């Protein structure tokens, strides 16, 4: 019974008008959750967590660097799942959502690279190093930009989205390369220190802000994705009946 409700609800989200209603309802809550988690996370990160014994206070940039790096990769995986759904079942909403993942993912990749660079300057003594992890992350940024460029190059939005979905699935090969880059090559970037299973080599007192910031970033990704998809949907459907009706009901003509 519950399963059926979920299934019907999911299929209903494929309709633009239902998606519009759902996303207007949900995204403010996600933004609120993001603000709350960020506030808690930043407070813990700046005031509660003790300074590192070697890096003193400069390690605190980790609480921006690591969550955005995770989200840059997780965002790609989410985008690939949406792209696969879009190509197999040809659901228009997932096409739009897959396309709207790309700018957000690209932004997180850029944040990750920028904060890593700022952190690398005092710790490694260099802004940039052609290390496996850094290079594969840079490649990820260019794959994101390629997807955005390909989508924008088509006059027919749906065709552009579907073609870009193929590129998304091809670019997926880069994700395991990024993940394992610190194990396959022993270059400058440090290895895995945080594990979900087994013991992390990071001290437990440093963990809480990381968890808060990770949740915050995930919520922000969801909220931005819903908002962007809604805007793209409105732009594409601006001449369609349901948008006109919506505008009329809000007093805009």
């Amino acid at each position, binding site marked *: 019974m519950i399963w059926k409700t979920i299934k019907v609800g999911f299929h209903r989200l494929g309709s633009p008008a239902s998606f519009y209603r759902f996303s207007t309802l949900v995204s403010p809550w996600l933004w609120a959750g993001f603000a709350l988690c960020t506030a808690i996370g930043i407070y813990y990160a700046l005031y509660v967590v003790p300074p590192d014994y070697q890096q003193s206070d400069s390690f605190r940039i980790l609480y921006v660097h690591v969550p955005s790096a995770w989200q840059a990769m997780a965002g790609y995986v989410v985008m690939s799942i949406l792209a696969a759904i879009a*190509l197999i079942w040809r659901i228009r909403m997932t096409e739009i959502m897959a396309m709207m993942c790309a700018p957000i993912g690209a932004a997180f990749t850029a944040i990750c690279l920028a904060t890593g660079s700022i952190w690398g300057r005092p710790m490694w003594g260099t802004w940039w190093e052609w290390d496996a992890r850094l*290079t594969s992350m840079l*490649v990820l940024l*260019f*794959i994101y*930009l*390629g997807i955005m*460029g*390909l989508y924008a*190059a*088509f006059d*027919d939005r749906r*065709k*552009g989205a*579907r*073609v*870009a979905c*193929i*590129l998304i*699935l*091809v*670019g997926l*090969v*880069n994700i395991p*390369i990024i993940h394992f880059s610190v194990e396959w090559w022993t270059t400058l970037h440090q290895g895995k220190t945080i594990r979900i299973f087994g013991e992390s080599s990071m001290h437990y007192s440093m963990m809480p802000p990381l968890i808060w910031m990770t949740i915050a970033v995930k919520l922000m990704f969801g909220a931005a994705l819903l908002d962007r998809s809604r805007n793209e949907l409105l732009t594409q459907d601006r001449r369609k009946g349901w948008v006109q009706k919506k505008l009329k009901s809000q007093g805009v003509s």
Partner: protein
Amino acid sequence: MSLAALPALLARDLRLAVRHGGESLMPLFFLFAVLILVPLGVGPGPNLLASIAPGMVWVAALLASLLALENLFRPDFEDGTLEQWWLGHLPVTGLVLIRLLSHWLITGLPVIIFAPLAAQMLYLPDQALGVLLLSLLIGTPILSLVGGLAAALTLGTNRGSVLLSILVFPLVVPVLIFATGAVSAAADGFSPRAHLGLLAALLVLALTLVPLAISAALRLNIE
């Protein structure tokens, strides 16, 4: 089902390339133009040139392979031949592979043939020459495959060429890393086998998956 049309397609592509003559050799001229500019740009010191030679030959080969991509599918797309690929009874991935093979024979093979000359121009150590040729032999088909994918993806757009090179470049980074890694290792007297093995693995991966992606992209574009 007759597969006789596959060699016929290959013969047609090659005949077209031969009749275009100079135009087909443009990528090769371009390769040497890049290789001549390098010593003039970074200075003609043999030690410096020898140390950057593997990378420079490979970057030049990569740039040269981009040149012919624009016309890989476009003429057939515009005159409707591409739609016949789906109406006929031949497997489309087979046709795609034949088209890529002809692209490789026209752009990849001349690069391999003239690579010893290029290596001499940049003072590549003699013991690395064999590995350079081997890395080009394994690597240039990957360039054709990835380039073909980018050409198929950008087929429906008007401004394909710039976008095409932007799409190709992140996907061929691993090829460049392993190929130049192999040649550099050989030049320094180490075994290039690990790098060549990984390069061959990339070729197998690309050869199995990319034709499927190309035919999916072509199909979406002719819809």
